[in-house]
């Protein structure tokens, strides 16, 4: 596996660990549909939370936050709507982003959880 894909995979695993620790209930991982892929879907009480994980090694080439532009936001939103209607869910839902920065030894340098980014 290429390094950058591995970083992404490890990042998702670490994010799930963190989310479980926070008390979220994991519903799906890497759920694919026509619009693309949702990294993680969890339940925060009664609220459905769609989570995009962004991982990077070092911040020399910019922060993971910067990699989410309007286009990606729109894509995640559409994806979420499609999932909600496909599953016929009536719950409230939101989109979160988890940004992880690793150092060279793949240790976590920082991990930030941004809630409701479409706010």
């Amino acid at each position, binding site marked *: 596996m290429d390094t950058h894909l591995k970083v992404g995979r490890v990042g998702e695993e670490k994010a799930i660990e963190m989310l479980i620790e926070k008390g979220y209930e994991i519903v799906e991982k890497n759920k694919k549909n026509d619009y693309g892929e949702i990294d993680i879907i969890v339940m925060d009480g009664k609220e459905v939370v769609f989570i995009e994980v962004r991982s990077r090694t070092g911040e020399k080439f910019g*922060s993971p*936050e910067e990699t989410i532009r309007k286009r990606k936001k729109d894509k995640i939103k559409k994806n979420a709507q499609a999932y909600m209607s496909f599953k016929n869910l009536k719950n409230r839902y939101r989109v979160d982003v988890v940004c992880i920065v690793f150092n060279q030894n793949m240790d976590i340098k920082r991990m930030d959880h*941004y*809630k*409701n980014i479409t706010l």
Partner: protein
Amino acid sequence: MFKKVNSAAYSGLDSVGIEVEVNTTKKGLPGFNIVGLTSKAVDESEERVKTAISNSGIEFPRRKITINLAPADIPKEGSFYDLPIAVGILASVMNFEIPEKSLFFGELSLDGSLRHTKGALPLALFAKNNGFGNIFLPEDSANEAAVMEDLNVYPIKDLDQITAYLLGKKEIDSAVYRREKEEKESPEFDMEEILGQEQAKRAAEIAAAGGHNFFMMGAPGSGKTMIARAISGILPPLTESESLEVTEIYSISGNTGPGSGLIRKRPFRAPHHSISKVGLIGGGSKPMPGEVTLAHRGVLFLDEFNEFPRSALESMRQPLEDGQLTISRSKQRVKYPSEFMLVASSNPCPCGYMNHSEKECRCTPRQIFNYQKKISGPILDRIDLHVSVSAVDIEKLKKERRKEKGESSDKIRKRVEKAREIQEKRYMKEKIRTNAEMKNRHIKAYCNLPEKTEEILSKAASSFNLSARGYFKMIKVSRTIADLDGEDVIRPKHVAEALQYRAKTTEDKAF
């Protein structure tokens, strides 16, 4: 956290207060948004502010930042919102208070230092008139603003300095106006360098004394351009209030250099004849001043007068008449002052040698007619002094070179200043300042014409076929000549001299 920073934007020569509202929040994805009808230069402020803050050794906050430039319905232009935006962001993340009654203004450089920004003087005026006691602006622009008294002008070098000040760690000395930075530049030519051409030089003196518009026609190489350029040297220096007006115009049009102060020299503008209408009178979607406004209180010299596009010349009628002009565009209307002295020069015909003593003119009557009709009657009507400048005799020139020089500009200027003083006293209760601005009622009130003078005038009017306007123009010029003589009464000799400078019609010359 929410912070509010005050700034101001100018539209024309007036300023409006702008509140820069900065909100930073940890909720939502980090980002940077500016709203409030911004233009490209304001949008690009994001990159400058971000880079300048990180280059000042402060980590750019990972928060959602929203900036609102209020009132939201006024279009925002220019790069001077950089400083208020940066200060707002820093205040909200480092949690310091922004001093009350303070204006912030300035463009940031990527390294965190502040650049010279245009419009410092109008901003200082706005601050003074609206009760803002402190203004923070780039070091290079501070001298311009420091002219205003009772105002604390803080010259800012870079973001570090202002952050330290606002955190209360370091003091900044408020700027004191430095007079030595004022623009001083001697005119290109002195009147004493111009040999011969006594009549034209005398006419230039009268024009300068009374603020009259002045038109020279003559063969190529006869010295028209030299005389015109020397005129700025015989005009009196700007008064304090005129100086402010001129500097304000130059400040918003970005014509003041870093660190400069008030402009004391009368403007001398000599645009090339390829100028467009907008270039001459001003305009653009955000109306900027044109040459007529940049020449305010000074000289606008149009060399090769009939080579100018007709549309440009015709658009000058209103500013010539009213001393100000209103530029209307869909988004805004702007009023600019344009009290200038028009000095124009042209050749009499396409080849340039009509009425020349030696050379023969090669033009056909048709060509001459077409050439001269390019300048419309209404424009010529607004010019009080017309002089034809004949070519200088080379033999005479040689002789004169050995002799002593002519009168120096300094000497002439002394006489001009005296004449202007007389006018200033006379028009103290009026809105006008010079003889050229007199309307008919002023002529009635201030031009004392004894019987003999009246007689000469009416004789001239009938024999030269003077129009009503031409008649009054004659009186105005006579008034100035009498002022130069220091006489209150207009004598026949004054009128006799004025008659030499009347407009000669095309028919007189060509046919």
